[in-house]
């Protein structure tokens, strides 16, 4: 009995070790004072971190990734929101079909999705490059935006919108004053999630990119040539940034969703 009580927590912490140990080991490698990735580490240095921050290619790749992330996120949310409204209004077979078609890009093998877009953008006269990557990332992200907004819409209920309509509000006022504030935690969550999805994406960036490389594409190219501790250093910096951002987003969204429920009722009073 004792042993069984320990087995599950034991497995859990073993799993946590499996998740974190490689990342910690990689972070340590970034401090190795040598040109090769190898253990054991005898002497330590912080020079790789300095060198990486001065590496033009790395900085340009990060900047491109950031630009693409913002652009694709704006597109994804702008498209995902009306799509979710449309899904919420349909029912029966139409709804099932609409959801299936909207979610399809998330279920296609990523390589296939990227390649089909690669062929297609040539047809519509778009060059490979930054705009194509942003478009490709948006294609991948919209399904997630739709799901997140729909989940929130389903729990929202119609009472407040109906009350506002009885008091003389038209659809635009209802949208701006009631529906969007209600959705704001979901939208914010979707926004941050899309930023991360885009920043991490490799396959779509790889097939849709021109000569400029996003950060994952640059890292992939360098890993194929050979490794030095500098790669570990820059990977660690990006890892800390994205994980921190993700945790912050998670916390922030959860807090917001609690607060918006209370503020919406009290805010209506103040108006």
């Amino acid at each position, binding site marked *: 009995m004792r042993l069984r009580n320990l087995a*599950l*927590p034991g*497995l*859990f912490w073993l799993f946590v070790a499996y*998740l974190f140990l*490689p*990342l910690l*080991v*990689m972070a340590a490698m970034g401090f190795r004072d040598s040109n*090769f*990735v*190898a*253990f*054991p580490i005898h002497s330590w240095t912080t020079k790789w971190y300095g060198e990486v921050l001065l590496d033009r290619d790395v900085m340009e790749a990060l900047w491109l990734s950031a630009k693409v992330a913002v652009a694709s996120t704006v597109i994804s949310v702008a*498209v995902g929101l*009306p*799509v979710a*409204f*449309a899904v919420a209004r349909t029912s029966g077979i139409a709804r099932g079909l609409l959801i299936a*078609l*909207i979610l*399809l890009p998330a*279920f*296609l*093998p*990523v*390589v*296939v999705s990227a*390649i*089909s*877009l*690669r*062929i*297609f953008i*040539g047809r519509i006269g778009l060059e490979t490059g930054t705009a194509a990557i942003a478009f490709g990332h948006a294609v991948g992200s919209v399904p997630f935006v739709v799901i997140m907004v729909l989940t929130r819409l389903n729990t929202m209920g119609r009472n407040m919108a109906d009350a506002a309509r009885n008091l003389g509000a*038209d*659809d*635009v*006022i209802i949208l*701006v004053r009631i529906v969007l504030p209600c959705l704001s935690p979901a939208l914010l969550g979707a926004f941050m999630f899309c930023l*991360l999805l885009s920043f*991490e994406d*490799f396959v779509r960036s*790889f097939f849709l990119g021109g000569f400029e490389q996003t950060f*994952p594409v640059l*890292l*992939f190219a360098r*890993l*194929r040539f050979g490794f030095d501790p500098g*790669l*570990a250093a820059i*990977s660690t910096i*990006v*890892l800390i940034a*994205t*994980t921190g951002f*993700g*945790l912050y987003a*998670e916390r922030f969204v959860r807090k917001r969703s609690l607060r918006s429920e209370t503020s919406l009722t009290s805010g209506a009073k103040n*108006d």
Partner: protein
Amino acid sequence: MTSLLIHLRRFSVYRGLTDLYARSPLARLLIVSVVPLLWILGTTAAPLAQMVLVSFYESFPVAEGETARWTLANYASFFERPLYLTAFLRSFVFATIVTFLTLLVVFPIAYYIAKVAPRGRRTRLLLLVIAPFWVSEIIRSFAWIVMLANRGAVNSFLSLIGIPGTPVELLYNNISLTIGVIYLTSLYMLLPLYAALEKIDDNVLEAAANLGAPAWRRFLRIVLPLSRDGVVAGCSLVFLLVIGLYAMPQLLGGPGNTLFATTIGQIFAKAGASWPQGSAFSIILTGTALAYVGLFVAIFQRRGRGRT
């Protein structure tokens, strides 16, 4: 903001438009469905349709002033070279095995977080396990390279504790690839499993325990059937993710064990002349993968309905 909108109501155009929207169901339907239909058309329907077309072309892009010539040779080439067929079969076997292993690894973890851990700590434990998934596939591949390389962390540790025969070749084979891929897939298994397990009523488990059901029977008769939806969803997601993997197999896998998605990617990375073949292979992969997963879902859902 509200006052601005109220001010807008003075204009007859605005009033006319909002009234039209409010009164006419047809107008509402049209306005609401414009964005979804355009998006589906422009990002899913048209690209896939074009891919299907291209897969029957003799060459692409079609030369100026010529009409496209149609052929089945692109599909035939899939069966002609054993190289392609083995990569294809290897992909399916690999994805199936990895999906099953992910389920085995993640189930106890999800169960622990959802049912065993103290209620107040669940969110924190879940976040702890989710946190590493905000790191990209490439960085995580690199982390495993640092772990498993000949002079990597594991080999260094093994020789430190005096195990003979180091370095052991750990990298660039199916085992290193599996370890890395499970690292990638466990989140997609964890979230559906957690959602399903969390919904199971504790009272049911307690009642079963009080009536004398041992742990394995409670697991087989209650936990497993009630979490079936999560298992099916998680396995489907993970399988489709693995079958489309492109980067990690190239970084962690062996050179002799090419997976089909990588093959497709390499065909595309060549000159444009090979695009029809790549399109045909993409369609073969997508069709079979979706059919495979669809069959899996159908079998498990039907069985579930029959029993209850």
